[in-house]
């Protein structure tokens, strides 16, 4: 059977402030042998601003891209950005379920869209189509010092009727991917709490306050790194971290890293290849503290044996026998 080919929609922010998300995703997709092509001359999905104007108009901006992909003969588009993802999914949902809506959208387009393209996040592709086993098999390095708080953002899994992926209250896909990399995952209660979304520019204080809650909860959970899947979340938590400290009197210094960058590190790629240098709060120390999987396993084995030996000694000392 031929390998599944996905259309990859990069999205505007991955050309700019989130360029490292794009870079690291390509590295990871290539490493795992995922076949993807980019639609030519894609345009903005419309994002949040378009759906404050009109739903048909918003759907049309998204559907222009879906139509290009449809004409390439592909039926699944993957994107890193949850905002683009939702724009595609909502357009698809409304057009599929409402003929007149579909007609109205198509009236705004040059090339009619026939509803043949389904959007999936790169997270979903990695979790469902590639699978944890393949990811785990590809791991060459472990970061033993990392305690990760997986932060999904609000619209990766919600609303469930449209997102159709993972759990809308307690998603686990990213948790499991991080675990598959051999990295410790914290029980993080604010996986889905909103960071302030696109209000950063006009309502900076509000966004800073909301983002603060997310970071504070991650630190409470014992995390020393926040792992994200959304460029806007990343921007609000990383680029604005100093703003948050100034606005709210906090004193955070916690790296906010894309899950694809983390995968790349575990697959043995260099920080440069993964755009780690683009992060405002540096995560370089994690890259430096990596050890090879071999070394890690030996270390774990030694620990296990030490534990066993201690138990043995204790048993002999107390002379107690185990219950039958």
């Amino acid at each position, binding site marked *: 059977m031929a390998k599944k080919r996905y259309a990859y929609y990069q999205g505007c922010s991955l050309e700019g402030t989130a360029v490292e998300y794009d870079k690291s995703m390509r590295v990871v997709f290539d490493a795992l042998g995922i076949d993807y092509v980019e639609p030519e001359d894609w345009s903005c999905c419309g994002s949040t601003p378009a759906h404050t104007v009109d739903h048909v108009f918003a759907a049309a901006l998204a559907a222009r891209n879906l139509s290009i992909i449809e004409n390439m003969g592909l039926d699944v588009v993957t994107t890193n950005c949850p905002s683009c993802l939702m724009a595609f999914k909502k357009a698809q949902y409304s057009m599929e379920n409402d003929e007149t809506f579909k007609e109205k959208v198509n009236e705004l387009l040059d090339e009619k869209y026939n509803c043949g393209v389904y959007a999936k996040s790169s997270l979903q592709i990695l979790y469902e189509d590639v699978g944890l086993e393949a990811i785990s098999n590809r791991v060459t390095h472990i970061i033993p010092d990392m305690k990760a708080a997986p932060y999904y953002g609000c619209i990766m899994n919600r609303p469930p009727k449209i997102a159709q992926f993972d*759990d*809308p*209250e*307690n998603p686990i896909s990213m948790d499991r991917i991080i675990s598959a990399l051999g990295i410790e995952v914290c*029980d993080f*209660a*604010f996986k889905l709490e909103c960071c302030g979304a696109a209000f950063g520019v006009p309502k900076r204080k509000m966004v800073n306050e909301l983002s603060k809650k997310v970071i504070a*909860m991650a630190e*409470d959970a014992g995390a020393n790194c926040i792992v994200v899947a959304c460029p806007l979340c990343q921007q609000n938590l990383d680029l604005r971290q100093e703003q948050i400290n100034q606005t709210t009197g906090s004193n955070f210094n916690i790296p906010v890293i894309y899950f694809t960058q983390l995968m790349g590190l575990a697959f043995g790629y260099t920080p440069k290849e993964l755009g780690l240098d683009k992060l405002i709060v540096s995560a370089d120390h994690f890259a430096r503290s990596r050890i090879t999987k071999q070394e890690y396993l030996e270390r774990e084995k030694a620990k296990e044996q030490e534990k066993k030996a201690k138990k043995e000694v204790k048993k002999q000392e107390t002379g107690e026998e185990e*219950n*039958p």
Partner: protein
Amino acid sequence: MRVGVFICHCGNNIAGTVDVKAVADEIRKIPGVAHATTYMYTCSEPGQDEIKQAIKQYNLNRIVVAACSPRMHELTFRRTIEKAGLNKYYFEMANIREHISWVGENKEANTKKAIDVITMAVAKVMQDKPLFSSSFKINKRVLVIGGGVAGMQAALDCGDGGLEVVLVEKSPSVGGMMSRLDKTFPTIDCSICILGPKMVDVAQHDKIKLYAYSEIEDIKGYVGNYQIKIRKKATYVDWTKCTGCGACMEKCPSRNAYDYFNFGVAPTKAINIPFPQAIPKKAKIDPNYCRQFTKGKCGVCAKICPTKAINYEMQDEIVTEEVGAIIVASGYSLLDLERLPEYGGGRYPDVISGIQYERLLNASGPTAGHILRPSDNTEPKTVVFVACAGSRDKSIGVPYCSNFCCMYIAKQAILTKDHIPDSQSYVFYMDIRSPGKGYDEFTRRAQEDYGVKYIRGRVSRIYPKGKKMVVRGADTLLGTQVEVEADLVVLGTAVLSNPDAARLAEKLHISYDTFGFYVESHPKLRPVETNTSGVFLAGACQGPKDIPASVGQGSAAASKVLALFSKDMLESDPAVAKVNINKCVGCLKCVRTCPFQAIKENQLRDGRIVADVIETVCAGCGVCTSTCPCGAIQLQHFTDNQILAEVNALCQG
């Protein structure tokens, strides 16, 4: 043939959307119809009198009443015409209310449909044959399914009334949900103190035969004569020898068995007696945890048992009981915390259900009545109660109110203050539903005397923060979001039907609603009857209800059975299948398809094999008539000719 047709206005129920006068005018034109008239309430006494008079006046010999569903009044009118001297099967009812006036608004279309439906009924009544009931003896024993408070009440009342009772309880002890409760609202009397004596009465009553840890395997028969197969599940302890000394439980090395009685608040032993007041007080092994079963070696209990009651080889046993009526009191279940992911979905040890909290409050519970939170065994100072945890929530398929959570939450909040005087309780609620006697005063007392803070709004999210659980909700009266940092959160989880409610209903041939609750015969007037005669309902299997309502229904169901058994003989319904032996070729397809095993093989004197219907067993479902390849088996009152007459009338009209 002189047919009389009586068309009911039913006040405005029918006349509002059906032109009844026009219908009567049209029906009068049908050949054979000697009289057609309308009446405001045909079922009323003057209405029935008018039918009787018309029978005499117009010399009528067939009657059609066009009114409500036959479920409602067919029996009423059959009695009416019987009193006027006609055979009661010379009667048809045309349902022009439920099937027409209540479902359509177009008066013209409704009127036309009413004419069609009555025309069919007239065609059928002309084909009707007189039928006569035979009578049969009743087995005056009663089966009660479920040993909770409703079932026990029913069993005791039946027993006291002199009936022999077979009581089947699926768990190892009777007592049901009530035996888990600490105190009861609104009087705060100790639950087990008032229930315990009832449980003992059940055990000692000479008329009650108790099958604990048993389930209904199969039900055959009909009102007056049921054969019940009961599965006695293997306990791996010979209960005839077990004295309930508890030595096995003490020595059992497997300490991590799930404690069903305590709803998993703490683990129990693999061999256990569920609670000190259990009836019967006998031990039982849980093979999912017992080392003898999981590892193939242990045998500690067998060694320790002074009466050698342990039997690891024990198998389930099927026994048969014969009864004449059945009371179903199979109870309810509670929503699993997993269904509430925004409240942690059961992942947080300090977010528990209301029934689990009862066990923490209870002196014979795992904490000996000290409220200790599960995560670290410390006393909680701030306790938050969340009402409607899953109830009134369409999104998880429970749109209904669970009836008693408001009340037990008020009770638990009061008890919390009693146990821990320096504690503070909060209750998130949407509406306080306390319509019972003394109930509303009770919820006021929680707020006025015990300082419980009631917050009107739903809880959106519960999450851990350090050692606390943050409860984030709304105070809609203040119009704001609120947060409480709690030590312990108690969820008033939704009441659900039993997971196996549907399966039991199918064995009983009774109906159940979308949510698995059993449907009573009439919501107001026949609340403990079902549409299957001889089967009665009691307690929360019919819908969420509290203790007084359950006990009331237990007694009501018992009185229904006692009334039924006050006669020695019952009349059979003659509308059953009948074999024309001249047409029957003896293929016996009907024997194989009959869901009631009501048809048997019969050899005639000439050696020919034919089918034979056992009249009293036949439920009149008609499956056999559609199976018979030569039309030899006919359902009386619904013969092919009678049904085709209706079809013809419709097609010609």
